[in-house]
């Protein structure tokens, strides 16, 4: 972890060495903080998207399952996480459950100790709920006959899902999914309220040192760059799906 941390800092310092001559002083002075924060935001985003996708696929399957218990449990999960503000979810986990302390939480404490892990868990559960709904929408829009045909050719339920249904569901849901990732990126700024020094957290710290409102503009530009990268990535994926 520390090797990774050092590498991250080295990249951030190198980027700032290159940026400082071409950026305003009020940015250059705190540049490593912005870039460090940018990396934390990217980390949280990549990890929560990946883990959230696993949850989303499982929950989408559960929502379509004929097992009443699975079905209802999946519905309650996605309803609760889509129906409450992300900030409330973060605070319940960090200040609420987290305040029980090491004695009461036992082996769960390492997860609750750091704002970063709580941020990751909540962002994952939150995006998992939204994406499961997006995927479910894609799945129910595929003609029923396809699944029946897949099973008739001898594929198992899971094989049919992974080889026939999901690829098509993703194709249908792709633009909505891209939107959700950008929304998640913007939502991730809320982890700054639970001590995480993500891009927003670093920006607020820099602001408190300089009282210079320009710093929020710098952070907005960095968020825009990240949003642009996500959009390009999804555009690239969309083109691949068209040709493939």
């Amino acid at each position: 972890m520390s090797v990774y941390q050092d590498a991250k800092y080295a990249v951030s310092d190198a980027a700032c060495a290159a940026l400082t001559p071409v950026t305003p002083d009020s940015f250059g002075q705190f540049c490593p903080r912005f870039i460090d924060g940018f990396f934390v935001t990217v980390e949280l985003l990549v990890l929560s998207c990946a883990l959230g996708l696993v949850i989303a696929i499982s929950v989408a399957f559960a929502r379509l399952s004929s097992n009443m218990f699975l079905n209802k449990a999946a519905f309650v999960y996605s309803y609760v996480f889509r129906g409450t503000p992300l900030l409330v979810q973060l605070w319940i986990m960090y200040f609420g459950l987290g305040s029980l302390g090491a004695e009461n939480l036992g082996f769960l404490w390492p997860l609750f100790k750091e704002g970063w892990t709580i941020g990751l868990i909540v962002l994952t559960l939150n995006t998992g709920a939204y994406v499961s709904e997006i995927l479910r929408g894609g799945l129910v829009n595929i003609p029923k006959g396809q699944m029946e045909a897949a099973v008739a050719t001898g594929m198992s339920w899971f094989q049919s899902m992974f080889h026939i249904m999901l690829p098509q569901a993703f194709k249908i849901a792709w633009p909505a999914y891209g939107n959700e990732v950008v929304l998640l990126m913007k939502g991730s700024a809320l982890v700054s309220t639970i001590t995480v020094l993500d891009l927003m957290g670093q920006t607020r710290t820099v602001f408190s040192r300089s009282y210079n409102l320009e710093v929020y503009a710098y952070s907005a530009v960095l968020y825009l760059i990240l949003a642009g990268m996500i959009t390009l990535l999804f555009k690239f994926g969309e083109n691949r799906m068209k040709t493939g």
Partner: protein
Amino acid sequence: MKLKISALATAVAVTISGMAYAQDLRIATEAAYPPFNEKNAAGEIVGFDVDIANALCAEMKRTCVIVAQDWDGIIPALVNNKYDAIVASMSITEERQKSIDFTSPYYSNYIALVAKNDSGFTMDDVTSKSIGAQRSTVASEWAEENAGSRGDVKLYDTQSAAYSDLESGRIDALVSDYLPAVDWLKANQGFGIVGDKIDINDKIGIGLRKGEDDLKAAFDKALAAIRENGTYLAISEKYFGVDIF
């Protein structure tokens, strides 16, 4: 006729300035920094800062309205004329002086490190262990400077959130202003101050918009008066048992 107009203009000007003078003075405080400013069970804003503000207003013979404002936005909202003065235990710093003016100091602040008594935390641990502080405070500046760049400093929106994380063990120590720390320690056994209080030459003043020189002079005069007539001492002793000027 000319005379009449100018007399009229004077009359209007006098009325306007009279109105402006009679207008309530709006004072902001954070209401989350006991015992200096906090909300009591009834939801009223009380504390040392509030008593001082009220004493100054009485001295200036002006009606004051005390409003609560979150710490992060307390300076921007002053600049945007949401209120006229900040009496919220705000340290006079060079950075803040770029955006706002301050009156003469109304007390001196020290900071202190607070940790669990049995943790064995010493001053040297600041660079290697996790320490917390409230964001945008002199304590957080001290923490960041002393923990080294990229040290493990956790910043909180309120002081109470930092204390609750110290209690739950998320952070090993926190840096806070000295007097509130002493106040907190009274109610929380098992915690103590690491070493001695730290003098960072921190003076607390009333924040005003730049260019409000009349108001600044009025505050300074009133402050000198309550120092003189014992009102200040009575308030200070009520909260701390000593003169904290």
